């Protein structure tokens, strides 16, 4: 019997399909096909091929936009949103419009031509995490922005483009994205009723039940979520309650890097180097103002959602927001627990 499961935060139902009964190893990624590669603009030595860096980790004596760096942040060459200008909110008949103001940056995670973050060292990933935090803190100073999205598209079919050099995208938006708002509202609703953070409750239940637990190390857990949308979807959550990723202290940054690297390695080894996306979910900027949402600190809990791209999302999912997951998350978690790293 297939099961319907409800995401406790968003209230989204998913169908966990058991009838099609595919075993976890039947989801292995096809060999990724990439179009022929052009010279990589992100490699050390090609700094002139990108926009001027806005941030870098490099020895003091090396000038900007020259070799010698450990990681670099550059504005996107083809940005979705532009940094200059005013929002100029306006109506157009019954429609609402504003200018596409925002920031769109790329974090070049390594000077070497390495495609998958899984293959970087925890030390390097920890530097990348610090870089995210520094960029987010900087973008928060711009009062036009409400939210910063940090996400990664790895692999051609996950939208990673043709250049196989590991990088993360950072986008600052002038509005709170819909998904983010829904998650905040869902978490607040749970908190109002229970006076507890829903994510803290999820963590407690997952640690005690263990079925969906993949890793539990040094203050972080990796789980296959109860209402997973995709086979092998993985969430990483800090056990200590915090709504704001940018408040993560130095030693926890290394712990997060460790668990991220382990999870990404498990996906890579276990599933044949699949394309994936990950998205950081964190609280929006909390600037005191009228209508300021005071409870976010208590009711929201930052986390990372990792989505391997092993199946295609079809019309059904788009139209309804009702996902069919062909693999129970318990089976996915068991499979991933057993992948040695």
């Amino acid at each position: 019997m297939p099961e319907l499961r409800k995401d406790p935060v968003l209230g989204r139902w998913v169908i966990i399909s058991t009838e099609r009964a595919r075993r976890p190893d039947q989801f292995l990624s096809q060999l990724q096909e990439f179009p022929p590669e052009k010279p990589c603009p992100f490699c050390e030595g090609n700094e002139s091929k990108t926009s001027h860096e806005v941030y870098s980790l490099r020895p003091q004596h090396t000038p900007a936009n020259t070799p010698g760096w450990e990681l670099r942040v550059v504005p996107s060459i083809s940005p979705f949103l532009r940094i200059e200008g005013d929002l100029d909110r306006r109506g157009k008949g019954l429609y609402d419009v504003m200018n596409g103001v925002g920031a769109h940056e790329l974090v070049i995670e390594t000077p070497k031509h390495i495609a998958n973050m899984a293959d970087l060292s925890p030390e390097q990933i920890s530097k990348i995490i610090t870089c995210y935090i520094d960029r987010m803190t900087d973008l928060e100073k711009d009062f036009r922005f409400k939210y910063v999205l940090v996400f990664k598209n790895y692999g051609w079919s996950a939208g990673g483009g043709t250049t196989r050099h590991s990088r993360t995208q950072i986008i600052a938006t002038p509005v709170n994205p819909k998904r983010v708002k829904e998650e905040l509202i869902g978490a607040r609703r749970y908190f109002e009723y229970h006076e507890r953070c829903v994510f803290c409750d999820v963590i407690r239940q997952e640690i005690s039940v263990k079925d969906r637990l993949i890793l539990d190390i040094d203050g972080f857990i990796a789980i296959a979520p109860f209402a997973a949308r995709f086979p092998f979807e993985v969430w990483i959550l800090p056990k200590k309650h915090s709504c704001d990723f940018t408040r993560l202290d130095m030693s926890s940054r290394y712990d997060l890097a460790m668990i991220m690297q382990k999870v990404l390695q498990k996906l890579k080894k276990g599933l044949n180097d699949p394309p994936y996306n990950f998205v950081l979910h964190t609280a929006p900027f909390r600037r005191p103002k009228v209508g300021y949402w005071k409870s976010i600190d208590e009711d929201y809990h930052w986390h990372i959602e990792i989505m391997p791209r092993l199946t295609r999302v079809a019309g059904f999912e788009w139209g309804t927001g009702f996902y069919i997951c062909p693999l129970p998350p318990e089976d996915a978690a068991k499979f991933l627990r057993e992948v040695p790293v």
Partner: protein
Amino acid sequence: MSELRRDPIGGRWVIVESEHPRLPEDFKYERHVFQGGTCPFCYGNESMTPPEIESVRDASTSPNTPGWQVRVVSNKFPALQVEGDLERRGLGIYDMSNGIGAHEVLIETPYHQKDIPDLLNPEIESFLSMYCRRALDLTRDRRFKYIMVFKNFGAAAGASLEHPHTQIVALPMIPKNVMEEIKGAENYFEYRERCIFCDIIRQELQEKERIVLENRHFISFCPFVSRFPFEVWIIPRKHNGYFCHMSLEEIPSLAAILKETIAKLKTIFPGLSYNFIIHSAPVNSASDDGAEYYHWHIEFMPKLTRVAGFEWGSGFYIVPTPPELAAEYLRGTEVKS
């Protein structure tokens, strides 16, 4: 400067790239090519599917044999099961229930290689009428709260079988996106006492720049807040919450506009894969309204781009081709007949 646009129904913001828009020739999409091979939906293979639920067939033929024009069968690998009780229950902090529902497949034509633009209008009318009949029949089961009709054409759009077919799913709860759309329409109605979709139709007909086609009963247009390049909606001029309550005069009109809209898209993008979904009001709900402020329509999504991490995480879409430009291309495209 790109533009941020807000969906007046769901409140979603999208980024519309107007400065360097992507033109049709800029899209590198996966072209659909029919592979052929043994197909359970072709004539003579009726025994390869579960028994038919309903069909349009020659009078002298018996069920599950050749001689049909439209055939509806249960999905061989259903996502939901028809038998049993919903049995809602908790599991610690989580909520769940049994996967009760119906999952049917409607085979639109016996011709393996004929997509909608390749069919005759009466053939399209015949399967559209069947959509309505199946929806009305499934609505009689009080356990079902939403009837979802959708089509995936081409592997890139998620179709696992290439023979043209539509899926009909009856769900025991109202899906989240539908609920949001209904709520959005309800809010608008409360404030203005008008249907938001009727207002959209009026504005689109007046501005004209996003209109693709108009006929007696329907219009097709690229929505102001598209999520995908060349997204097209087909909507009836007359206010009506449920597609299955469409009148007999409306069906030929719908067949014609559906055929021509898809034909135009496939002329610009040969071998295009696509999805379409019929959006209709929920059924068997306690507050059985919806019909007043909701307005059924078809959302048509060409598969030209990949949805990436940004969209997943944020629900914030980037549209590389402004809908005004897409509509202009579509209006200007002559369909060879």
